[in-house]
């Protein structure tokens, strides 16, 4: 076996990320507490640098490298760009929050960057091994990030829960991969795809492999019935970590699903379509109904995230290019809205006070009409009311479902979106219709947070008025 030099170019952003992260890790050791801002700035510039590299490398068509284990294609590049952007916003939103809680340490940023590297590897994976590698790099960073607040009982519990359940999901995924390897004799997704397409689909081992893989993906996405970890972790983790968990990793999980199911097992679409329908209906039902009972905003948004996964699955299960593009559009839209939603919690909280109860938003319209309006935009957008971005993303996935004659599924989805509207409306009700209690302070966040959060919310409105560009991007990425 002769050794040939692989083409490093497609993985340039990942190598840059790795190099910079290691450099920041070292540098951070020598920084004093007061100059910690350097870590922050370097982390942000790393993200921007990686973004530039990814954009620069963008091209139509796909290229494989590293013995076909690593793929670069338009879908991956677009997802990576949004992963950088989302993480950039997370770092920015989290800065003040971490400072006020004495958590403004290098670890948060280094773990975050390693997580981004893991996501990138996952997005570009073209082999079962690369998928697993990326997934574990991401997951381990997230476990640690949840546990960052060492002395908080709640956070430690959440981290423990996350770790145990996450490890189990990884094990199931690995088990499925091993069976798939047993059946097809290959780790390469392209070859797996060819082998599975040639089989009749009735193979017992293949069916088991598929079930385990779908479970692994469903766990990472947080689809019912593999969602148990999600509300507890979102709630227990420091809001800064929740912000991180709820944003970019959703894109990575979407990519993982696409790589495994579409790139690897397109021939089994009939089989996994049924499984995803079940997951989607359950997620829509449970996520939306249980969210109604929540009094904690983080928990409510966690259940809302579960229901959004249900919508996202509608797009993927349709098995069409338009459906995949719709799901990608949905994932990106959700990340933008979710960032705004958790960002609002960060904005409202200050030292010693987590504004994570819905009650904490009482009378926000009197205290800060501007941010009440921003939250209103986010809530109505998540509920899927036009003219906001959330409406178009829902329209896209429903259209995908109707396009493959699943009109009943579309009807189920819209009914649950009406049920879901109730709890978003309740947040608006608390902000606008309830009176503020005495002693509720005005918002004291720093300027950059205010400006960026406002931009985030207005982007939800702007992309709702002009969704064509983002939509065309998603369609082009999957063409």
């Amino acid at each position, binding site marked *: 076996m002769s050794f040939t030099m692989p083409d490093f170019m497609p993985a340039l952003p990942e190598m840059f990320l790795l190099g910079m992260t290691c450099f920041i890790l070292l540098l951070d050791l020598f920084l004093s507490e007061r100059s910690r801002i350097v870590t922050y700035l370097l982390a942000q510039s790393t993200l921007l640098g990686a973004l530039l590299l990814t954009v620069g490398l963008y091209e139509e068509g796909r290229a494989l490298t590293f013995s076909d284990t690593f793929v670069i294609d338009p879908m991956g590049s677009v997802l990576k760009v949004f992963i950088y952007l989302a993480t950039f916003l997370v770092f920015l939103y989290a800065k003040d929050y971490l400072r006020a809680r004495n958590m403004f340490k290098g670890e948060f940023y280094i773990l975050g960057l390693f997580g981004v590297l893991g996501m990138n590897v996952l997005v570009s994976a073209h082999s079962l091994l690369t998928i697993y590698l990326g997934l574990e790099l991401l997951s381990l960073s997230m476990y640690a990030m949840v546990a960052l607040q060492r002395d908080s009982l709640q956070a430690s519990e959440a981290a423990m829960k996350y770790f145990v359940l996450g490890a189990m999901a990884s094990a199931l995924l690995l088990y499925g991969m091993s069976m798939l390897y047993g059946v097809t004799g290959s780790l390469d997704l392209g070859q797996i795809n060819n082998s599975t397409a040639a089989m009749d689909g009735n193979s017992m081992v293949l069916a088991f492999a598929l079930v385990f893989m779908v479970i692994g993906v469903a766990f990472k996405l947080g689809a019912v019935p593999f969602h148990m970890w999600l509300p507890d972790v979102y709630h227990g983790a420091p809001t800064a970590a929740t912000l991180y968990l709820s944003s970019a990793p959703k894109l990575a999980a979407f990519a993982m699903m696409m790589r495994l199911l579409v790139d690897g097992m397109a021939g089994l679409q009939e089989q996994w379509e049924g499984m995803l329908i079940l997951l989607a209906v359950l997620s829509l039902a449970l996520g939306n109904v249980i969210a109604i009972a929540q009094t904690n905003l983080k928990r409510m948004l966690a259940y809302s995230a579960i229901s959004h996964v249900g919508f996202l699955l509608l797009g993927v299960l349709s098995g069409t290019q338009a459906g995949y593009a719709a799901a990608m559009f949905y994932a990106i839209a959700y990340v933008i809205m979710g960032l705004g939603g958790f960002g609002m919690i960060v904005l409202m909280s200050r030292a010693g006070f987590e504004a994570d109860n819905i009650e904490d938003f009482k009378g926000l319209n009197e205290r800060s009409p501007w941010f009440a309006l921003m939250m209103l935009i986010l809530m109505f957008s998540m509920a899927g009311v*036009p003219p906001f971005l959330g409406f*178009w993303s829902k329209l896209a996935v429903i259209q995908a479902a*109707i396009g493959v004659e699943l009109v009943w599924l579309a*009807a189920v989805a819209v009914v649950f979106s009406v049920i879901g509207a109730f709890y978003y409306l309740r947040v608006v009700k608390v902000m606008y219709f309830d009176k503020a209690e005495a002693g509720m302070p005005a918002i004291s966040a720093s300027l950059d947070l205010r400006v960026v959060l406002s931009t985030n919310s207005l982007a939800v409105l702007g992309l709702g008025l002009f969704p064509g560009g983002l939509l*065309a991007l998603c369609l082009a990425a999957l063409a």
Partner: protein
Amino acid sequence: MFADLPLLSLVIWTPIIGGLLVLAAGSRNALEAKALALLVALITFLLSLPLFTSFDTATAAMQFTELHPWIAAWSINYHLGVDGISMPLILLTTFTTVLVVIAGWEVIKDKPAQYMASFLIMAGLMNGVFAALDAALFYVFWEAMLIPMFIVIGVWGGPRRIYATLKFFLYTFLGSVFMLVALIWMYLQSGSFAILDLHAMPLSLNAQILIFLAFLLAFAVKVPMWPVHTWLPDAHVEAPTGGSVILAAIMLKLGAYGFLRFSLPITPDASQQLDWLMIALSLIAVVYIGFVALVQQDMKKLIAYSSISHMGFVTLGMFIAWRIADNTGSMQGAGMGIQGAMVQMISHGFISGAMFLCVGVLYDRLHSREIGDYGGVAHTMPRFAGFMVLFAMANAGLPGTSGFVGEFMVILASFKANFWFAFLAATTLILGAAYTLWMVRRVVYGEVTSDKVAALQDINGREFLILGVLALMVLLLGLWPAPLLDVMRPTVEHLVQHMAVSKL
């Protein structure tokens, strides 16, 4: 000179952008914000006038059209245009918005800028609904409109406002999402969201029936038709006066407009198949809800039920078309029912708005809507009593007022369809008179019942202006409905011809 301006875009975006400016002006300087709101409302109204004056009454084609690509990937266009059905409704919207801004002038003390801004934005969105010729654009306006109304009822409403506004929002939202599914399905079949393309699209009967039912859910909730009307009395009672006026005068018309723009032309065969259902529901609304109105103790609730009953006439007028055609052998006579329905919509916009404003005038003084708390108001508020009696008469369908024209046309048309339809519909002449005039007798006439009533002040100039303008419109439309009928005739004729052709 107006032909070059994108008038429809202007009547949509002027109030929306103006509303945002009012919001930005904030409540710190309430007067400034209110003056700005009035200015915006007036400008919008003036901008909408050329739609009427330059309207070509000889054609049924869409006029003042604007077409720009919006979302190319789904071939969704920013496509606007009006015909004889939608143009009068846009005028009604811009006109009512001016009145609502004036009506809220002194009354709204809490966050007046946000109040005015909500109404302006709502007006723009409602104009958008009427002007949209692209189904996706229509849906965006249709749903977006719920947001300001949700806020208006919830913030400035009565004691049970939160229950009422949530019910309002969820009810109407549930109705509309099925319409969205139907629209998407049709888009995937035909490749176009353009309403006029959907009109021409052939559909099997089964598909038509499902689509018709999906539309029915959306529009019946908005109209509202029995039995999905229960949100309306709650929303009306708890809404502030301006909210009630907009709800009754315009939002209810959106449902009826939906039937004319979507159900009848897109699913004519299903409409014909299911017209028994629509006629039955309409007659139940007319008769049963009329009785329900009779026993109301709350003035706003009474007018709310009266609105449902009157809207029953509108839907009746639209769906008796095929029965008339069966009996007379041509679709010619069928147009009268639809024309009557249209006149009834416009007239009800003026009358119900005026009635809610009358109740608002009383409520601002005594903070009660109970009929029992009043009595002998005519002694202390003679000018007000005059207006209230006029509007009550119009509500009861007195000849010479606008209320008569529409009802008469619909009853006349239903005679051609079936005697019993006409008989049941005509009971409204008795029932409507009974509940309205009985309320007026108890509130306006009789002895002065309490010290509070004795201390009432008659209406001031601002209130006189609003009620006076409305009274003028009610009488004008009642005595001389010809301009309105002329405007809508070609469109209605075209619609009737279109309905007569099967799409199977």
